[in-house]
């Protein structure tokens, strides 16, 4: 349980046919972000905020592309209106890869607990976004699983990663 490898995660993303990644960099996703930038067949866009990124991804999808959105849980909180308006409401099947800031500390029992930690899964449930946890390479199959859920339901779905990606 020490995080998935960026290289293996990129291989999964490529195999699933994602054409674009909208990624707002954060510490936990930095190796994944760089690995994606090094992948010539995937376009990477870094908007300035997460709500902007979700709207950008929605436009890509409406135009026929297959985007993946990478954002931290804090950014997910910021992007609520865009997620509602550009994902849930219009039935756009965006897959979100959500960094779970605060998870490692909470699991280690450190104090204080990051206030971003406890709201992440309840928030996803409140939005009725199905999600699975990604904690190591053993869990990489959940990306394809949730991508299928998004496409099957025509709604956004999420994969929540608890630890930073390793190179």
């Amino acid at each position, binding site marked *: 349980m020490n995080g998935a490898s960026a290289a293996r995660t990129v291989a999964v993303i490529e195999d699933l046919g994602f054409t674009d990644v909208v990624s707002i960099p954060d510490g936990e996703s930095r190796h994944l972000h760089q690995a994606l930038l090094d992948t010539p067949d995937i376009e990477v866009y870094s908007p300035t*905020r997460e709500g*902007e*990124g979700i*709207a950008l991804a*929605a436009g890509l999808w409406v*135009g026929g592309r297959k985007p993946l959105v990478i954002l931290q849980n804090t950014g997910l909180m910021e992007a609520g209106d865009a997620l509602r*308006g*550009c994902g849930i409401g*219009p*039935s756009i099947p965006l897959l979100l890869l959500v960094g779970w800031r605060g998870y490692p500390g909470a699991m280690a029992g450190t104090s204080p607990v990051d206030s971003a930690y406890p709201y992440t899964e309840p928030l996803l449930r409140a939005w009725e976004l199905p999600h699975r946890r990604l904690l190591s390479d053993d869990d990489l199959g959940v990306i394809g699983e949730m991508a299928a859920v998004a496409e099957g339901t025509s709604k956004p779905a999420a994969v929540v990663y608890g630890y930073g990606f390793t190179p």
Partner: protein
Amino acid sequence: MSMERLDVFRALAARRTAEVVITTMTATLQWPLVSSHDLDFDFLAFGMGHASDFGLGLALARPERKVVVLKGDGGLLMSLGSLVTMGRYGPPNLLVLLLENRSYEMTGGQPLAPKVDFVAIARGAGVDKVERIDDMTAFEEELPSLLTEPGPHFVVLPVTNSEPLPPVAHTDHAERVVRLRRGLGLE
């Protein structure tokens, strides 16, 4: 100087052929008075301030097709970072027309911060082709090139409105998306 917004819309509708036109806020109420096209997209209630972000994504996905975004200055202030992203990734087929009325018209006309210079902000954000067009004669002269020449373009249009606004039509969001994708040949 300023232009009557409906005159701007009439001029655009008269020149428009196969471009996607994305509208938001009060533009969604008046654009249908001059246009009924499969590639019209009503972004109302899709996300505060994000019409041009959506348009950017669509333009990146469909490089063969011009994407025109009609958005207001109040909406832009809700997502100013959009200009930075447009400056970084904006493709040649994106045209953003900023309807500058210096107010939040949709919510009752509350005034914006009065000293904001949207041309300067866009240039500072890295958008290369930025201009301000103040009158209808100049707009009609420039419109053909804005619709055909490579951008991305960001154009500030000072507008007023003296026409009564039609009521908001709350159409289904998913149906709007299906209609646009069908217009693009994707459904």
